[in-house]
């Protein structure tokens, strides 16, 4: 008894719970990714700052960016510090790569938005770049003019690799919790709706065997059962009356 209403309510509760957990998981993942990516970017920012410091110190001596010595060694050394770094490149104001840990890329152009971000000056910038992410800093000469930028690329999968075990662990726990909550929802709904089913079934039984005819005064606060009892009694009374009346008419008809 009570299974249909209980199922409806349990399904409603579980659906709400699934939606809430799904949105919470999304929020959590999004926050986690943002915290991790800001940590990673700020860490690479520290490395880039070191390169920027070197380059700008030399620019301060009046050399043009293209003619600086030792920059290639500095970026190679930084790359060696972290095997996750794909490459570090120094480019001029036109976006042409002047120094790169991947020497084959020297002379090619960086994406226009990198140049645009660098030319704004100031803070660390970051951009997605195919399967990688790039973080960069602008380079300025002693007059404060932006002369180019230095960027560092790391694989986008780096974040996924860091996050994957955490997400897997949480997904397992989330599913377990969902399962447990669904069981509570179902048991609770059954417990709540069993009396509804029982009482309705009890009332249905009264229909089959209505109470003896008696005067049932219904006040405004009469319970559903009391009203139903009056209903069943009146229905039986009406049907008995109708049957008797039919018999009377039949008898009259025959007598005539």
């Amino acid at each position, binding site marked *: 008894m009570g299974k249909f209403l209980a199922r409806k309510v349990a399904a409603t509760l579980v659906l709400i719970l699934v939606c*809430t957990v799904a949105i919470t998981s999304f929020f959590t993942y999004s926050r986690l990714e943002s915290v991790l990516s800001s940590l990673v970017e700020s860490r690479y920012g520290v490395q880039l700052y070191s390169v920027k410091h070197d380059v700008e110190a030399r620019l301060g001596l009046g050399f043009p960016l293209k003619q600086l010595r030792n920059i290639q060694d500095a970026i190679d050394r930084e790359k060696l510090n972290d095997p996750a770094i794909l490459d570090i490149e120094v480019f001029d104001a036109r976006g042409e790569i002047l120094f790169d840990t991947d020497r084959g890329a020297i002379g090619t152009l960086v994406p226009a938005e990198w140049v645009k971000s660098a030319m704004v000056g100031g803070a660390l910038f970051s951009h997605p770049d195919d399967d990688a992410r790039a973080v960069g800093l602008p380079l300025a000469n002693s007059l404060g003019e932006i002369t180019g930028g230095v960027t560092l690329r790391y694989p986008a999968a780096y974040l996924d690799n860091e996050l994957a075990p955490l997400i897997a662990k*949480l997904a397992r726990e989330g599913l377990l919790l969902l399962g447990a909550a669904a069981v509570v929802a179902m048991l609770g709904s059954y417990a709540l709706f069993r009396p509804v089913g029982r009482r309705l079934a009890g009332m249905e039984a009264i229909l089959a065997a209505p109470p003896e005819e008696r005067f049932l005064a219904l006040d405004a606060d009469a319970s559903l059962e009391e009203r139903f009892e009056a209903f069943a009694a009146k229905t039986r009374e009406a049907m008995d009356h109708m049957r008797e*009346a*039919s018999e009377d008419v039949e008898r009259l008809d025959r007598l005539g």
Partner: protein
Amino acid sequence: MRFDIPRPLLVRLLALAVLVLVPAMALLSWSSLDHFEKGLAPEFDRKAVTVGRDLGDDIERAVGYGIPLDKLVGVEDYLAPALEANGELRYVAVADPEGKVLYILGADSRDLEPHYRSTDYDDPGQGDVLGGRSALIGGYVDVAVPLVVKGGRVGHLHVGMDAGYLRHRFGEMLTDVGVLMVVALLLTVEILIFVVVVNVSGPLGQAGRVFERVARGDFSHLCWFGSDDEVGRFARRVNAAIRAADDLFRRLMAYVDEVKTAHFDPSVVEHAALIEARVRFLFRFSASGAPKAEFERHGIDVRLALFLFVFAEELSRPFLPLFIRTLPAPPPWLSPEMAMAVPIAVFMACIAVASPWAGAISERWGSRRVFLVGLVPAVLGFISTGLATSVAEVVVGRAATGFGYALVTMASQGYMARSIRSKKSRTQGLGLYIGAVLTASVCGMALGGVLVDHIGFDNVFFTAAGMALVSGILAHRLPDPVEERRDIATPGMRDMVDLLRNWRFTVLMVFAAMPAKLALTGVVFFLVPLSMAGQGFGFGDIARALMVYAVTVVVLAPLVSRLADGGGWRAGLVALGGLIGGLGLLAPAIGPGLPPLLLALLCLGISQGLAASTQLAVVQDICWIECRTLGQTYVLAQVRLLERIGSVAGPLLAAVLVPLVGYNGAIAAIGGLVLAAALVFAAASFSFGAGPHLSSEEA
């Protein structure tokens, strides 16, 4: 426990919902926090090592040139920029090989030195990270990076990070989860009310009324049921019993008719007629040939659909002016403040213009059709606002949504008004509408502020469009509009003038209703988000601040509804609300910061809570005649129209004030205006009396 009234079952179901949702979400959040702290710790350490390595290189170079480590000059100045540039760093220290702190910035060396002296850095052990060693010292994560010159270790550079930094960052996430939890519970309440009323208490309540009829001998009605569950099966059995009695009656009547028309003996015919008269005296059966089931309207039928629609609309509430600010600069003739205010004002103006018409066509076409028609412009408006790239496009999108909003809300209000059986509970009935709108406001504002941080402005508008469509699916199952179609004469402009000639009505509108709406749109929708954003608060903070207003109204409105239903001086409650709101809005004049704004929002919430549904009850008292001659729906639609004049004026007035007195000054100025209006209304309200006015104007 009674099942034919919703409250007892609902209370138990809500307890079950809390039991299902809260522990699951709490455990999930706690577990997330724990996992993330552990999972992100290595990256945290790597950052410290990188900083330490970067700073250490220069120190090593200096020592390599022959300067002893303890004789370096200006080390603190050298370390300072690193500390400033990295928010999670708390200190940087340089220690000699024995652990004596030589230079330190950001902490007291006495807190750290004992630990450094007692640690053997040559002994590899726990806490070793790539290029350093990590240890927990008090509230710090200390990462020691060795300083090596010519192969020999000359000391350590220690980078100390706030151990609570990650917990703090994820604390923000927990706040989001908390908000989501509140929204989920409120949504659950709405859904459970719907499920219980539609499936259990509604059909059983109606069945109870059928039982009462039958107990009086009236077999002309059947129970209505729309499902195949226990209640549906029970209703079917009850209907079968009624039909069986009806069937016996029809057969008897057919037999009596046959005897009356065909029998040759007049005494038999007379006897048969007597039997027929006795049966017809004792029992009543349907005159149309079969008993009928009548769908009984409940305000709850439309409440969930309305709730979801308003929820969708409110999602953009915490950020709409800030979203407009991100769009390309408006034309030079439009100030930036006015550019942010115009879309809000246009939205309100569209609601104002469309509401009377929407009320009238809702009477003619039926609520369901008008609700569904209203969804078309509303959804298109949400989508076009999400895609907008200029202020003009936002204005068009908001205008469409405002037009749809008027249709949907008026259709819902009409449906609820028609479902109220007892005149005594009219304020509570209106409270049903206001309750749905306010709860949806709380949910929409709260979730909108959190969502926008994660999915961006455009996707929030698309989400709103999706939710509005879901509300349409729910509205689609409302009863057939043909059954409720009524052709009524549409009152004209003259009727509006007649209404305004009722001076009490005009005073109520001009000095209470309009200022209240002016404060709502000008302050809550426009100035508070901008003021808070200007002070560096995020969308989530803005949403939570706005929730103070909405939650206060939600809590107060039902209590005040009951108070107002019980009679008493309703106009006095409206006046008191105005005074509290006006005084509270003066608080931001004290100065910047969150507390004055929260106080203003709280007072405005109390004000609206006291006045919102009470105002409508006052209208029905002072416009007793008009409600009967022009129709209650028409009168209420005019109230909405006049209120919206305040709603339109709110953001525009605020946009004019901001360049002159700033955001907080503008809030206080609007507060002064509301206070002045409330004082006038309070004085006038003494002649309002209590109860209905049986003539529209005595003077």
